[in-house]
């Protein structure tokens, strides 16, 4: 009995380990390939690089234009997430604690129920009228709008759990509502803000479709556009291509490893809310 239990236990680990191979292996292959010559990638796909080809990275970064794309994505992500957090927190504060309104809450809920693809064509035509096509501001605007619903859903339920006393004390002490918000509510909401902030970083950094439609000037393109563009040029030259993929993935992987619990909790809450 005990013995069969132990066998079962080992079998469990074998299964768990097998699946983990399928999730790690492709990334490892990309990472190793990004340091190899093309012929090495074909001849010995699973070996360590004989000499580490850092040129692949410089090739991707400069002639593949990934450097420019990287800084564009970085800038767009920072600005979008800052605005998502600010506007989202302001609205959530009212909906959670000042003026709860089911109608408004449902209104924002539409953003989760209706697929983003529905607004692709109208967005393009509206932003074109406003001269915001081929312009980072237009893209940032769309990222803010697409993330607002989920941000508000998660923050409202977070802010509802905050104790009322501190806020009341601040108001009695004569702190205005603005000061109460910025110096009491926002700091208390840090865990909630971190969760939605990381979700927003991931969704903006990883987004492709809106960027593709709204940005065509090579100088303004984002990282996902950049690596897609490399496919045409470097499809037969795996080294720089995989280096470009690694440059896209590494920042997100680092963020994920540092904030793992937040990322998992946020994605789960976000999915369940949606």
């Amino acid at each position, binding site marked *: 009995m005990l013995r069969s239990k132990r066998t079962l236990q080992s079998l*469990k680990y074998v299964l768990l380990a097998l699946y*983990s191979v399928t*999730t790690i292996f*492709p990334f490892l292959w990309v990472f190793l390939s990004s340091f190899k010559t093309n012929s090495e990638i074909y001849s010995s796909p699973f070996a360590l690089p004989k000499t580490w080809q850092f040129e692949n990275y410089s090739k991707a970064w400069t002639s593949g234009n990934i450097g420019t794309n990287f800084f564009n994505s970085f800038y767009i992500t920072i600005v979008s997430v800052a605005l998502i957090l600010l506007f989202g927190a302001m*609205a959530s504060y009212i909906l959670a604690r000042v003026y709860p309104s089911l109608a408004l809450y449902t209104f924002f809920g539409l953003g989760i129920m209706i697929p983003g693809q529905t607004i692709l064509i109208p967005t393009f035509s509206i932003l074109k009228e406003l001269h915001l096509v081929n312009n980072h501001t237009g893209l940032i605007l769309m990222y803010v709008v697409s993330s607002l619903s989920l941000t508000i859903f998660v923050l409202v339920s977070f802010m509802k759990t905050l104790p009322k006393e501190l806020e009341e004390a601040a108001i009695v002490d004569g702190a205005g509502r603005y000061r109460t918000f910025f110096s009491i509510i926002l700091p208390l909401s840090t865990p909630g803000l971190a969760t939605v902030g990381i979700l927003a970083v991931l969704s903006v950094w990883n987004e492709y479709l809106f960027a593709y439609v709204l940005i065509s000037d090579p100088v303004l393109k984002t990282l996902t556009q950049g690596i897609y563009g490399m496919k045409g040029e470097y499809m037969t030259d795996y080294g720089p291509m995989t280096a470009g993929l690694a440059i896209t993935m590494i920042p997100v992987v680092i963020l*994920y490893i540092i904030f793992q619990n937040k990322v998992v909790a946020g994605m789960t809450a976000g999915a369940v809310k949606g």
Partner: protein
Amino acid sequence: MKQNRGLFSVLFLAPASLLFLLFFIVPVFFSVYYSMTEWDAVSKPEFSAFSNFASLWRDADYWTSMRNTLWLVVMTLTIKIPVALILAYLLLRVKRGFKFFRTVYFLPVVIAPMAIGLMFSLIYSESGMLNQTLDLFGLSFLQQNWLSDPDIVLFAVSAPQVWQNIGLFFVIFLAALQGIPNETFESAEIDGASSTRTFFSIAVPMLWDVMQVVIILGVTGALKMFDHAWAITQGGPGVSSAFASVYMFMKGFGSYEFGYASAISVTIAGYALAFTIVFKKFFSGKDSLEY
């Protein structure tokens, strides 16, 4: 004070509400309007009532893309959900290595779908990693051109999406399983239930609420599926690996039939809304948001 509160609320709600109204809700209505026009993206849209929808009805390519989307839903039910659920159940009471496995299983979820798609297109290429791996295990008779056979390409293009989704569903199931009190499992074990039995008679029924969420995510995810397919095949050959959103994009920004593409996007939104509402009503009786 009361007045102050009203003004304050309006000011604080304004940025989010206005942006959302102008750049989400209004575009949704525009989409519905455009779907009833002939429009080549350059000249003015011309009203054509429901003719786009009538053409859609007769458009074999549209139905191919819908059938492909349905395949992805079928894969959600037959592959993603079972695999994710089994992984979560296996990992649930593992002590050593718990964090490692969770980290690794969820890893694909955080990576850009575009990057994952491109990664798979390298893997699938003729001398790519997949064919090399098959060779390594002496399975070279299985080697093939993964992206040119219309029967295989659909699965090749779906695989990365299935793979990413398993990670997401896995953590959702894991969180839900962790919410079931340990005693429930323990008392079942004392009663002599095998772990397979415990799985089917305790874990699965108690997960019904999350299961609904996951099914809805699987369906809406299939309707939104774009980046992977675009990265790997751009929907080709022909439309054999195009999903609903990919076909919409091909018509919209590929051949500039903005009216027709809008009609496709209206049907996509319609299917997503209808499925979510009907499914929730049917299974949980809840039709409003929890607030």
